[in-house]
């Protein structure tokens, strides 16, 4: 592979050792400040949610509707990204607080946490960007890498990617059932259907909350409440789709083959995570709103370190990459997003 052709086995081992040092340092310094951070984010998110839903009850007044919907959308983004995604990764398990723990957490999303943890934490983070193993490469629906064989259905992918962006949480929920693996016989239809029922039970409560319970409670304001909830969900979907697609699909992200997994060392694993991921530049607030997936590289190198610590180690990871002549893919949001969409349009064609 050209990106690492200049590195010897010893170099890669050293690269891995340096990253292990960074990891150990963060782990040794986790403490009360970090715990306070995540508890504060959770308190702010739940406060925003309560404020947003309360404002929406007064949504006969258009400014109240706008403010309420915005607060709710921001709360839903925080809940899914900086809180849910990272808690489910086990980033806060070290606190040993059963209330903020990967095994007990459930999130405001159509997909049940346990199924998402399997498809994301295990399949995606273990086999990152390995063709045929990492189902997140195009979510088994999109062609995002020239190495994926072309099929006429990809001609429509700019369109259905736009639709996916709007209904992203539903795409993820269905995706976690792995219907294509049942189709190909890799898993039984019985198992897939059981999982689908599991999704429907979880998603049913989600739908009931946003589109039945709160509108009912709002009485005469039921319609603006329903529309506000819908808008907040769509805004969250568009945002998370945008951030997540910038994490792996911009130009330059490398894909790997299954035989490269044989005999993979710790250093090799780090290199694969690095080359398969891209960052997004931005300020502190942007990083929080992206669930710190703007530090996708650091997240993939250390998926279980607390997200609030990625920003401080990013310069060190970047310097390390420079030292070893490895690509550290980063850019502003608009640039990375444009890049992703260009790629999706171009790869729609053979």
């Amino acid at each position, binding site marked *: 592979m050209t990106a690492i052709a200049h590195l010897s086995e010893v170099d890669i081992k050293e690269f891995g050792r340096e990253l292990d040092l960074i990891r150990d340092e963060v782990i040794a310094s986790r403490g*009360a400040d970090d715990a*306070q951070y995540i508890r504060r984010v959770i308190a702010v998110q739940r406060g925003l949610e309560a404020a947003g839903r309360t404002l929406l009850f007064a949504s006969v007044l258009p400014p109240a509707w706008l403010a309420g919907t915005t607060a709710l959308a921001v709360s839903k983004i925080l809940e899914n990204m900086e809180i849910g995604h990272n808690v489910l990764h086990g980033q806060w398990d*070290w*606190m040993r607080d059963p*209330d903020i723990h990967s095994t007990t957490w459930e999130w405001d999303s159509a997909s049940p946490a346990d199924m998402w*943890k399997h498809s994301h*934490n295990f399949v995606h983070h273990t086999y990152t960007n390995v063709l045929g193993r990492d189902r997140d490469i195009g979510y088994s629906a999109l062609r995002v890498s020239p190495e994926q064989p072309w099929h006429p259905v990809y001609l429509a992918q700019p369109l259905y990617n736009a639709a996916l962006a709007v209904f992203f949480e539903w795409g993820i929920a269905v995706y976690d059932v792995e219907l294509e693996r049942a189709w190909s016989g890799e898993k039984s239809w019985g198992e897939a259907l059981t999982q689908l029922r599991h999704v429907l039970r979880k998603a049913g409560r989600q739908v*009931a909350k946003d589109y039945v319970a*709160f509108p009912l409670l709002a009485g005469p304001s039921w319609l603006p409440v329903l529309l506000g909830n819908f808008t907040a969900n769509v805004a969250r979907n568009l945002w998370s789709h945008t951030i997540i697609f910038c994490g792996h699909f911009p130009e330059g992200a490398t894909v790997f083959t299954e035989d490269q997994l044989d005999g993979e060392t710790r250093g090799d694993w780090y290199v694969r995570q690095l080359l398969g991921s891209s960052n997004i530049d931005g300020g502190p607030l942007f990083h929080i709103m992206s669930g710190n997936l703007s530090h996708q590289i650091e997240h993939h190198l250390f998926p279980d370190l607390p997200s609030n610590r990625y920003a401080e180690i990013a310069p060190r990871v970047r310097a390390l990459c420079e030292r070893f002549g490895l690509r550290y893919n980063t850019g502003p949001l608009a640039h990375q997003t444009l890049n992703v969409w260009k790629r999706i349009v171009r790869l729609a064609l053979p």
Partner: protein
Amino acid sequence: MVALSHGLGGFVADVVEGRRAPKVGPRVLDAVGWLTTPLLPDDYLGLLNPLWSARELCGRVEAVRPETADAASLVIRPGRGWVGHRAGQYVRVGVDVDGVRHTRTYSLSSPPERGDGCITVTVKAVPGGVVSTYLVGRAAPGLIVRLGPPDGTFVLPEPLPSRLLFLTAGSGITPVMGMLRGMASRAVMPDVVVVHSAPSRDGVIFGAELRALAARFPRLRLYERHTRAVAGDGRFTVAALADVCPDWSRRHAWACGPTPLLDDIERHWRRHGVASRLRVERFRPAVASSGGRGGRVRFTAARRAVYAAAGTPLLQVGEDAGVLMPSGCRMGICYSCVARLASGRVRDLRTGREHGDEGELIQTCVSAAAGDVEIEL
């Protein structure tokens, strides 16, 4: 009706200050659950006031009272869901130290007769003890702690026996203090002998209160032994018991203190054939720490036990034993494999560090047994 007898202002103040949780029926909470899904109403209530959350019982430290140079009593107001306790029982206390939840068990030193709805635990700082040094040295009013339900059989029977003997040493006085305070507050004091050892007169936890009780109730006789005082009495041994309490074998006895003393006491009572009259409370189970060796691993749900080598991940141990083990990346990153540790300690294979509290969630794929362990799988 509280609001009437106490005035609405008092009721509101009670609610705001957490003395009283707003009364909400389970059916209402169930309905509200449709609005808070996938969370529970308690997750929001707990943010307003941790004491309102019944899902995980909390308590707020109202005062920290120094008892001796290295011991303090914490006055804790339990939140919604506290069921009340019997004097002499213990309670699990969870506290965050440097961001990490630690859980320890402490005897309650307050009787249920205490009028203000609070409970107390009395903690002696153990050198190097993370939780005890924190609670004695750093805890302050306002601190929120997690509480377990009260438990334990080290209690007084009903009706009270006519003659009682309490044999305690050091912080072993704490559960007994709960019982003495309970009897004192009801002004029911049978024939009681308290034999208590502590390093010095000043080092006696509740020293002044014990002496005051003995002065108030003639039927309560207190024998203090100050083991490290100048010209002190030396360590208490069961051989000396007959001198201070000749009728010890005819009394119902309660003993609490260091393990060697309790072992001696148990042997003594057995030898005289009166073991049925003795109740013993141990603060520390007799656990042998083990270095770089493995241990016996018991999977509690699967009811299987196997020997595990020091370097073998528990995940593999379980799988080899045919236990249904959740698993994922097998390299410590995906947390698909976490399981609850019921007892014992494990070694993190990545760092070599030993850890393990009862109930801790551990990653089985990178943890090995450090001595005997029990896993809830």
